[in-house]
């Protein structure tokens, strides 16, 4: 494992001060910071070879197109997809899910069909399905969650039926940090020949993701949550689905032939990449994934487990602090509330001490409703965070308690 000081030195922003205090960045669930290699890669695109891809006959366009396709190959390797045609670049998780919800809905969904999601989803894996259900007269079913923040698996098994057309669940809960048993969820759905979409927004950056081993039918994630640029993401889909699904957007590059009477579509993956794609983002994303790989995904996972267990231990000892989400399998995300103190007050004071946390519903209102609360304070850590930073958080929380009680 790389030394923590060396890791932190790779991320220039971690060095900065806010309000004259060292930044403690615990909002990685919202977005992660970028290693210098990624920042440099973006600069490099624009300073040395920027040109639109797949368009020009000129030198720069060739270089740019090649870098873009090379990025696709590196994303394929990172998630271990079978072939490059199965890796579609999108704007991010939200864009990917909306795309699948539209195309899948148009192609397969009829009145009375059912889609299953879980109670742990963020809005991006709820609203697109609601929109699709409304359009098609289908029904959205929700897997319930127990008090620790784990899905109730038996309930899920009971929901599966011949009416179920798709299961779409998150790999990891953004609000509570719960890691879902996706392998089991997929296996159960497949026994009814039901395809499964896994929302990897909070999963891709923690541990190893292998879509073939998981055997999911679709896997989606955002670049900015895995140390890459924002505005780029990925939709992985098994070729049999992607070949069969209609495109979700029309425009340049996704077409084969266009006449005003009829348009035929380009082959995979271009069928789903209408218009000028975010090729600098894709190139930056590939560099981010390379950074994660070279740091070591197992090492990252191990380090994050240590951070989680230290943070949980440290915060549990604070009187009046309640942690929401106590699953045995979690990423280093801790959602909590202090007795009688509003999450917003806590967040504001922590901010003034240089500690960045998120407060509110975390784009997952149903999760908050499940616990009968209107929000939490969420400290979401990742491998570049330190034990000392956890100590600062604990001290900050004590300060908050003393100010408000």
């Amino acid at each position, binding site marked *: 494992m790389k030394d923590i000081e060396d890791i932190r030195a790779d991320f220039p922003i971690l060095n900065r001060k806010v*309000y004259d205090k060292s930044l403690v960045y615990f909002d990685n669930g919202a977005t992660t910071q970028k290693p210098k290699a990624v920042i440099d890669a973006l600069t490099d695109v624009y300073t040395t070879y920027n040109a639109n891809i797949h368009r020009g006959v000129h030198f720069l366009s060739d270089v740019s197109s090649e870098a873009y396709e090379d990025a696709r190959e590196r994303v394929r390797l990172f998630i271990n997809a079978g072939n490059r045609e199965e890796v579609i670049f999108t704007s991010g998780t939200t864009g990917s899910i909306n795309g699948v919800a539209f195309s899948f809905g148009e192609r397969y969904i009829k009145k009375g069909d059912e889609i299953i999601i879980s109670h742990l989803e963020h809005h991006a894996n709820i609203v697109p399905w609601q929109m699709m259900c409304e359009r098609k007269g289908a029904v959205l079913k929700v897997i319930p969650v127990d008090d620790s923040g784990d899905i109730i698996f038996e309930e899920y098994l009971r929901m599966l039926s011949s009416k179920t057309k798709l299961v779409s669940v998150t790999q990891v809960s953004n609000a509570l940090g719960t890691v879902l048993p996706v392998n089991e969820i997929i296996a159960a759905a497949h026994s009814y020949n039901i395809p499964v979409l896994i929302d990897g927004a909070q999963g891709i950056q923690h541990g190893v993701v292998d879509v073939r081993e998981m055997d999911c039918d679709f896997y989606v994630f955002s670049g900015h949550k895995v140390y890459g640029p924002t505005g780029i993401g990925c939709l992985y889909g098994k070729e049999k689905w992607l070949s069969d699904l209609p495109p979700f957007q029309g425009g340049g590059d996704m077409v084969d032939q266009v006449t005003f009477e009829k348009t035929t579509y380009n082959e995979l993956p271009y069928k789903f990449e209408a218009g000028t794609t975010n090729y600098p983002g894709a190139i930056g994303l590939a560099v981010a994934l390379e950074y994660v790989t070279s740091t070591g995904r197992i090492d990252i996972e191990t380090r994050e487990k240590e951070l989680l267990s230290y943070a949980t231990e440290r915060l549990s000892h604070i009187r009046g602090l309640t942690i929401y989400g106590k699953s045995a399998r979690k990423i280093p995300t801790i959602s909590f509330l202090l007795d009688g103190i509003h999450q917003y007050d806590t967040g*504001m004071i922590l901010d003034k001490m240089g500690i960045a946390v998120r407060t509110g519903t975390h784009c997952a209102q149903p999760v908050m409703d499940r616990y009968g609360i209107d929000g939490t304070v969420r400290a979401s850590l990742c491998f570049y965070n330190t034990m000392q930073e956890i100590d600062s958080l604990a001290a900050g929380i004590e300060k908050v308690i003393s*100010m*408000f009680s």
Partner: protein
Amino acid sequence: MTINEVQDKIIDEFSLFDDWMDKYNLLIDLGKELPVIDPKYKVKDYLIEGCQSKVWLRPDYDGNIITFTADSDAIITRGIVALLIKVLSGRSPEEIISGDLYFIDKIGLRQNLSPTRSNGLLSMVRQIKLYAMAFNAKGKYDSIKK
């Protein structure tokens, strides 16, 4: 005191403190002086949209001046509402509509509250001004009818 005199007094009070913690402590104390809304009005109709925490604000117009009562489930927000009420409550609709709230920038409320929070503050100001406009319009309408 005029709106501006109250604002200047608040600016003076805040200028005594350099440290942000102290300013927040002052806000917390101010929140304790807030004329609290009757619990029966803590309903959706009086809830202000656009704040991270819940804010209820109720105007009471006697034909001359508007008196505001309010509350929030967050203590810092309660302090911020208390400041707005200090400046704007007990005044005529015209005064409220034309009031220029420079104290928000001067005491660093706007810069030091992040955009979403600042939007909450702006929502509160907007709501107070909207009430004033509504009462003003109603007053004019009533006088025409007479």
